[in-house]
């Protein structure tokens, strides 16, 4: 048989076609996939000894206990600490990704501390009569806060400013509540310590009065959809049923609903009334319901060294005269409340005020300050965390540094103390010593889950435990050294001639702003984009949802860009039409820009971009 060139070509073609029916090409593809799986573009996780370290989350005032899984000393995941009496083993989405914050693309790494110090010295020397040097502390109650207060006491015209304490400084004892009326408070969506709230949830009936079906309203035992801005009218009517008819008109509820609710609060006590923005009417209703001393209590102060007690008093920004602050330090190294920049700016002197912000990103007040000095961020920083709003006991816990901060980070306490000419010392350890000296309370250690009476622990061991993850819980027998928010300070009677709307209706700003995220003041880990970009669970920062009818009235069609305007200014936002938002409301996921133009409760308008 003679083989031709044609036969050879046919054989080769047939062989190639036949090979396609064997596992060979698939094997080739598989091997290529395995190879490409390991190509240099894909990061390789680091290896090393796996250990557990403990700290407390510093991303919000709850200060939940944290167990960090570390590989070669680097935290790779965070979890709650089971059995912790405060946080009950829970961590929120922000807290679970906190270990990624040091690598945030917006991280601030460089500053000019020498230039800032020189400018501060010059401005302090120039400070005239009626002018002041001020510290704005967004997270008061820390050891660092006491350093600021001591520093401002040492300066002739020093002022220590802090946001007004929620509930007048009182603490909530949820464990005692049997009925909770929430006037728009995000009780199940980040309010207080999430683990503590969820642990107490089974024991109280939750009634949520709120215009829109928030996360809390969705899970409440009863949701009362009231008209936007009518919370105060409802609270007033519950305290004084004579106003029920006018409250019914304002809220959209029936008189019977209001009277039934009033009866339930009285009959199924102890009751607790919470509001989203500390309405005085809600505080007065609590007083009338006998909540003070039951579900609202005066928490004992965490002991401080005697030498610290000559400190500047705590004041709110509104109490300072306009155009009077020549030097302003703003500490936002630890997230806290946000005060609109417009409210701060008008307090500054007109000619060349010096504003120094201590921050880990330029997204906050750093946008407005002459100097922004970079600071460590959780979990790099070491700072104590003041007691949470839902902790009736005094607490002391430290957010311990789990990773070393980069070089060149500023220490706000040391900087301000130096400017004021005092020695900051080791304020954390001094305060721990003062607590130990009191001999009261117990220490809960995270690694072994044990509670030990403080009197059985030596000072060095106490300090060591605090730095390895522990919480000091003050006992109830502690003397009340400070009675902020006590019943005497709460108005028992309020003018009841007419129910008032929370914010007056306005033709200029027809929409009522409601924030969806309770602690939006900081940037969160890029991984939080899973919740608002890779899914629709939450809205992205600087985005607002509004009813399609409201959107149409504002000239907006479909999801688009728009401009949000309030009395403080305007900023660009993304807009999503959503039928679940009642007409007349704007559900806002705040970012730094929105926070700057919105107060605690704000009316706004939206116009098409």
């Amino acid at each position, binding site marked *: 048989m003679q083989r031709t060139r044609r036969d050879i070509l046919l054989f080769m073609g047939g062989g190639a076609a036949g090979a396609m029916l064997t596992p060979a090409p698939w094997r080739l593809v598989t091997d290529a996939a395995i190879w490409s799986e390991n190509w240099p573009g894909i990061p390789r996780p680091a290896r*090393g000894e796996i250990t557990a370290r403990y700290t407390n989350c510093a991303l919000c005032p709850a200060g939940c206990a944290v167990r960090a899984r570390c590989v070669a000393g680097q935290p790779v995941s965070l*979890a709650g600490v089971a059995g912790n009496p405060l946080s009950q083993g829970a*961590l929120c989405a922000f807290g679970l990704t906190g270990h*990624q914050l040091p690598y945030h693309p917006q991280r601030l790494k460089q500053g000019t501390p020498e230039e800032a110090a020189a400018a501060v010295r010059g401005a302090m020397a120039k400070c005239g009569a009626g002018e002041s040097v001020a510290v704005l502390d967004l997270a008061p109650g820390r050891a660092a806060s006491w350093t600021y207060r001591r520093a401002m006491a040492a300066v002739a015209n020093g002022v220590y400013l802090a946001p007004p304490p929620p509930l007048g400084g009182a603490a909530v004892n949820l464990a005692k509540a049997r009925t909770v009326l929430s006037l728009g408070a995000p009780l199940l969506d980040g309010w207080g310590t999430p683990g503590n709230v969820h642990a107490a949830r089974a024991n109280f009936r939750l009634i949520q009065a709120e215009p829109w079906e928030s*996360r809390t309203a*969705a899970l409440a035992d009863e949701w009362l959809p009231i008209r936007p801005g009518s919370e105060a009218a409802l609270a007033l009517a519950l305290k004084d049923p004579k106003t029920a008819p006018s409250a019914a008109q304002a809220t959209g509820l029936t008189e019977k609903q209001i009277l039934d609710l009033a009866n339930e609060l009285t009959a199924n006590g102890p009751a607790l009334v919470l509001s989203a923005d500390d309405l005085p009417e809600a505080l007065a209703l609590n007083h009338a319901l006998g909540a003070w001393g039951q579900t609202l209590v005066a928490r004992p102060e965490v002991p401080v060294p005697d030498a610290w007690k000559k400190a500047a008093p705590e004041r709110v920004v509104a109490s300072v005269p306009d155009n009077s602050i020549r030097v302003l330090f703003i500490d936002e190294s630890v997230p806290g409340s946000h005060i609109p920049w417009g409210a701060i700016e008008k307090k500054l002197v007109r000619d060349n005020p010096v504003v120094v912000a201590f921050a880990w990103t330029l997204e906050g007040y750093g946008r407005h300050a002459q100097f922004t000095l970079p600071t460590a961020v959780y979990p790099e920083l070491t700072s104590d965390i003041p007691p949470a709003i839902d902790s009736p006991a005094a607490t002391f816990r430290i957010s311990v540094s789990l990773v070393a901060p980069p070089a060149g980070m500023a220490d706000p306490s040391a900087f301000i103390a130096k400017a004021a000419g005092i020695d900051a010392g080791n304020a954390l350890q001094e305060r721990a010593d003062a607590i130990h000296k009191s001999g009261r309370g117990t220490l809960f250690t995270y690694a072994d889950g044990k509670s030990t009476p403080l009197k059985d622990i030596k000072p060095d061991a106490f300090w060591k435990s605090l730095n390895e993850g522990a919480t000091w819980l003050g006992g109830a027998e502690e003397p009340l050294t400070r009675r902020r928010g006590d019943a005497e300070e709460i108005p028992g009677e309020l003018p009841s001639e007419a129910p008032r709307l929370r914010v007056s209706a306005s033709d200029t700003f027809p929409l009522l702003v409601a924030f969806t995220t309770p602690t939006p003041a900081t940037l969160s880990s890029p991984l939080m984009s899973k919740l608002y970009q890779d*899914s629709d*669970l939450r809205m992205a920062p600087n985005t607002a949802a509004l009813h399609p009818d409201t959107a149409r009235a504002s000239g907006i069609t479909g999801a688009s860009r728009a401009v949000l305007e309030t009395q403080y200014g305007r900023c660009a936002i993304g807009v999503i039409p959503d039928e679940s938002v009642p007409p007349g409301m704007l559900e806002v996921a705040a970012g730094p820009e929105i926070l700057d133009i919105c107060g605690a409760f704000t009316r706004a308008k939206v116009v098409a971009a």
Partner: protein
Amino acid sequence: MIAANKPNKIARYGMSIDLDRCTGCGACMVACAVENNVPPAHEGATARKGITWIRVFKVDNGEEGPARRSVFVPVLCQQCGEDTPCVHVCPQQAVEVDPATGIVGQMPERCLGCRYCMAACPYHARFFNWWDPQWPAGMEKTLNPDVAPRMRGVVEKCNFCHGRWHAAKERAAAAGKSEIEAGAYVPACVESCPTGAIRFGDLKDAASEPAVAAKDAHSFRLLEKLGTEPKIYYHSKRDWVRQVAAAPKPPNGKENARG
């Protein structure tokens, strides 16, 4: 050392999710991403192209105004026990049901990226890597060493944190046990849920919480009529929630109020 004479127990891991406790906080979603080295959303990612091994949907009863009621429903791979659709369609045998655990595993090394499995999955619980995984500079230091990042062009999905199962198995072996004790192995979403809405355990263990939940009259499974025997049991005492789950499509025709 594993006891030689004791045969390994065959488990059938499952989950129960109490919808009356889920607040839609998203802790499970980010904890899952941290545990399984899922990168932050790519610049071009959307809700359709994003990777979320567990995703919480907001579902409502279709009413307007004060009558509207919503529920948050975490949806992950339902770990189908019978006729697992993704296994049947995979041309690469990249999807397998582990006989020792009942977990439906995905092997990205074998995956061709044909996405047949995504089309076959009735729960939309599979995700395609449209981009190479990228983390902001420095953040790769926080990656979990127990899980390899996946490349562009492959499909991935929930595997009940299989890395944790291996770790638990190793711990058990180190302690001289052949079986993992109840509670020694839990996925990241279960550990992170602040309300305790998600529970995990062996469905063969009658005392485990999912096994107990499976028998509850208020429990249901998604698309049960397909006969795929999912191992995720949902629970709600609210009638309308169970009715919505049984309905052929959501009342408003959308999976998500903002979808």
